């Protein structure tokens, strides 16, 4: 019985078929491992088929764009549910690998001090269009407001960035000074550059830089990654 299922496993590998499942013991596991190693050493089969690469690309494109389609609530819910289920595995992966998936790590790293620019990455967000790409020429700035965040997108030499539009001192809404190319707090004297860095202030303690948001261009729209509307 054991011999038969192990032989079947070997035959499946050699014929590039999916082997059947069974409850293996450690002796069998060793032989299976050896068979895999031997089989994998034959490199002709080791590269992905182009059709496979294209198929997965299509699937990913569908699911990732379905996620950002506003109004398609059902598919968003279904995706989020799947995401939550997958999230368990991912969290486990992160722990076992010593990879922290928090925004601090996905950020550029470094210690979290008041001088470090943070990245605003919501746990559950969606891509929201905030400006037409054609309206955001080089050097131009556009304020935006989604249901949950306010901020500014700026095109600097073809690279677009998004920063939060809330002063990190006491939460007043920043406004853009078009002549000085900076963001100003209406409450106290605090000035930020268009990429969120503190330029100057007259406070007893320097407020942190403005958090940045993830931003991308898609279908002629500049989109930022923000939490769902409140």
């Amino acid at each position: 019985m054991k011999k038969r299922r192990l032989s079947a496993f070997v035959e499946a590998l050699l014929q590039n078929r999916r082997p059947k499942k069974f409850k293996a013991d450690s002796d069998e596991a060793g032989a299976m491992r050896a068979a895999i190693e031997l089989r994998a050493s034959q490199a002709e089969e080791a590269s992905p088929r182009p059709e496979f690469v294209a198929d997965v690309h299509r699937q990913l494109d569908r699911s990732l764009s379905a996620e950002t389609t506003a109004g398609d609530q059902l598919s968003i819910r279904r995706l989020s549910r799947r995401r939550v289920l997958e999230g368990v595995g991912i969290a486990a992966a992160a722990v076992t690998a010593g990879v922290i998936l928090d925004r601090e790590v996905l950020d550029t790293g470094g210690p979290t001090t008041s001088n470090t620019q943070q990245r605003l990455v919501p746990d559950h967000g969606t891509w929201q269009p905030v400006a037409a790409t054609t309206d955001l020429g080089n050097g131009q700035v556009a304020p935006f407001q989604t249901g949950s965040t306010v901020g500014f997108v700026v095109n600097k030499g073809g690279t677009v960035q998004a920063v939060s539009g809330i002063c990190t001192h006491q939460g007043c809404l920043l406004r853009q000074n078009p002549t000085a190319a900076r963001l100003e707090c209406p409450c106290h004297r605090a000035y930020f550059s268009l990429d969120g860095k503190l330029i100057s202030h007259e406070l007893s303690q320097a407020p942190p830089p403005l958090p940045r948001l993830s931003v991308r261009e898609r279908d002629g729209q500049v989109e930022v990654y923000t939490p769902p509307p409140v």
Partner: protein
Amino acid sequence: MNATTAGPVLEHACLQTVPGADLSDSADDRRGTATSLRSVPGDNYADWEAIYRDNVDRLYRMMFSRVGNRPDAEDLTAEVFRAALGPLRTSASVGEVRAYLLATARTVLATHWRRRYGMEITSIDVDHEMTSPEVDERPPKSNTTQQVTNILAGLPERYERILQLRFLESYSLKEAARAMNVSVGNAKVLQLRALRRAAQLMEEAP
């Protein structure tokens, strides 16, 4: 632009500017519009497609080397991307993205084995994978085949011969039996014993 050619992600996590600097550096710059936005190379991926393109080959090869058959390698590779791409931000560096994909791959593979055979048959060592030379930059066959050659060389002659015929020369069981002048049943037994012995050698090998 349609969804399949989603434009460059415009994020650049390491952009440094002089605070308050004039954003329009020259008249040339001013002529440019956002429609010609360029993706930023270097340490970050432009978008999920860039992540996919850059890693699909590497991940598939890794999965294939762990499961030894195409259907499983394809399913597991697709599963890694499905699970990983949603939560991934393109603002993460290339190294962070790869570490994350590897960590996901490790979990996906471990789950696969436990579900299919009740125990982990092979695994992914994330640290080792991150520090070893890039799979796609080393000549194919080199590493694995060297190890396989060593292991085969350490086996008794008949064990070496049966594995050589079956795995490296793609003989069917019947053909291998004929070549070795034994019955098919004997060839089958020989093959399993050879694999068990090879497994012991692999465990002893560094």
